[in-house]
């Protein structure tokens, strides 16, 4: 038996004479006495030890075979997928004026019309739903709650359709939270709202600087007030976008949440992410403080630091498991307000990455979106492949204007994975 290509050995912080073995394929981890490591390499483990590590996916009989199998990993997940997921961009309008908004120059009073909503319902009813068990929708914008009546209309019709087909239906919102009042939550809950993702960009002083209302006044207090009420009726996931300059201030937000009674029992999931600089084509004119690559050293520092601050206060965050781009899944579709189809909300309005429309359906985007770019020797022999699968296609597209090669995350994982895995173990994620 050999050590899997997709496993890593880390020094244990807790036990000096042991190492942590971690499988990036399935997130399994084991503490192995250091003296056994030479035996692993020589194939001299006892049958019992071999069985334990093989069951965890840390040992394999053939590295060549596992590399061949890995090439089919995403295909298998596509086959296993029992749901169809749509991200619907209801509008490109917003009541906030966030200084870094990635939609930047694409913003405007553009709304998904009733006619496009009709086309969307027709698109779903024409879709091959064989083997599917549910339809899931993420209402997105702009600010989706500026299209509240459209949400109600679309959701009601999909709810009736799925009911007639024996399918499950539910939706989530990605909202700035300013309009998510208690009556709105109650109304949406009745028609399938499962959760809402709300963004807070740090403590009040920073958040209000980055996410003001269009009038220029801060939005923090309004959002906190709404979250305090909404979390009693629906599930609230909190996100936040940080820069190199402000990420160290985000723990103050966590303290503010607790002071407002928004403790881990009220907020079941919390995750902060770096702001990404958009391309000049769409970027807001006065903002350049985001990242260009996940390999910038401060990104590693921020990821580990903020995760620790979240976890040590008892909140939950995303655990380290195999991860990939949304675009890898044929049944994941972004519907733009004008009825055009994309594979990532960041790509809307970039014609070269349009993958069809509600009338024509989804075209073959395999080449344009570089779905196979990670199927090369270097990636297949990289232990980080199951956490990466070629990296973020949006970041590749805005950097190079294409997705024809991978955007390697090796430096990022070299700098973070041991610490992230230790956090997962320590906090039992």
């Amino acid at each position: 038996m050999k050590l899997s290509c997709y496993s890593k050995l880390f020094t244990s912080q807790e036990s000096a004479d042991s190492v942590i073995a971690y499988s990036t394929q399935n997130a399994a981890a084991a503490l192995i006495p250091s003296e056994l490591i030479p035996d692993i390499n020589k194939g001299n483990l006892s049958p019992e030890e071999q069985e334990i590590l093989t069951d965890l996916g840390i040992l394999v009989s053939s590295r060549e075979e596992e590399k061949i199998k890995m090439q089919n990993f995403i295909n298998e997940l596509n086959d296993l997928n029992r749901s169809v997921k749509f991200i619907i961009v209801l509008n490109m309008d917003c009541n906030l004026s966030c200084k870094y908004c990635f939609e930047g120059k694409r913003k405007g009073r553009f709304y998904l019309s009733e006619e496009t909503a009709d086309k969307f319902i027709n698109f779903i009813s024409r879709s091959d739903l064989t083997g599917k068990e549910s339809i899931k929708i993420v209402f997105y914008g702009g600010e989706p709650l500026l299209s509240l009546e459209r949400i109600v209309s679309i959701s009601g019709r999909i709810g009736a359709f799925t009911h007639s087909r024996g399918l499950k239906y539910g939706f989530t919102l990605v909202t700035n939270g300013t309009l998510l009042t208690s009556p709105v939550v109650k109304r949406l809950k009745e028609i399938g709202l499962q959760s809402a993702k709300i963004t807070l960009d740090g403590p009040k002083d920073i958040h209000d600087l980055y996410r003001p209302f269009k009038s220029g006044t801060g939005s923090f207090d309004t959002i906190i007030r709404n979250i305090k009420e909404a979390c009693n009726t629906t599930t609230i996931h909190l996100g936040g976008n940080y820069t190199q300059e402000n990420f160290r201030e985000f723990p103050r937000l966590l303290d503010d949440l607790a002071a407002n009674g928004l403790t881990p029992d009220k907020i079941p999931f919390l995750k902060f992410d770096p702001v990404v600089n958009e391309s000049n084509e769409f970027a807001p004119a006065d903002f350049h403080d985001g990242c260009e690559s996940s390999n910038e050293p401060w990104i590693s520092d921020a990821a580990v630091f903020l995760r620790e601050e979240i976890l040590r206060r008892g909140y939950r965050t995303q655990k380290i498991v195999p991860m990939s781009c949304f675009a890898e899944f044929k049944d994941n579709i972004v519907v733009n307000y004008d009825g055009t189809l994309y594979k990532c909300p960041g790509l809307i309005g970039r014609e070269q990455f349009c993958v069809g429309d509600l009338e024509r359906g989804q075209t073959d985007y395999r080449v344009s979106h570089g779905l196979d770019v990670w199927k090369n020797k270097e990636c297949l022999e990289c232990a980080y492949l199951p956490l990466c699968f070629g990296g973020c296609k949006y970041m590749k597209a805005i950097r190079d204007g294409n997705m024809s090669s991978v955007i390697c995350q090796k430096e990022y994982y070299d700098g973070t994975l041991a610490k992230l895995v230790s956090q997962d173990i320590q906090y039992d994620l």
Partner: protein
Amino acid sequence: MQKRIIVLKKGVEKKDGPDTFCCFGAFIPLTG
């Protein structure tokens, strides 16, 4: 000195596809 292998986390199963909305650059979990 520790002599035996200790399982810290069991592996997660492949799920029925991704279920979490990703942030750009952050990705969606594929198992859970």
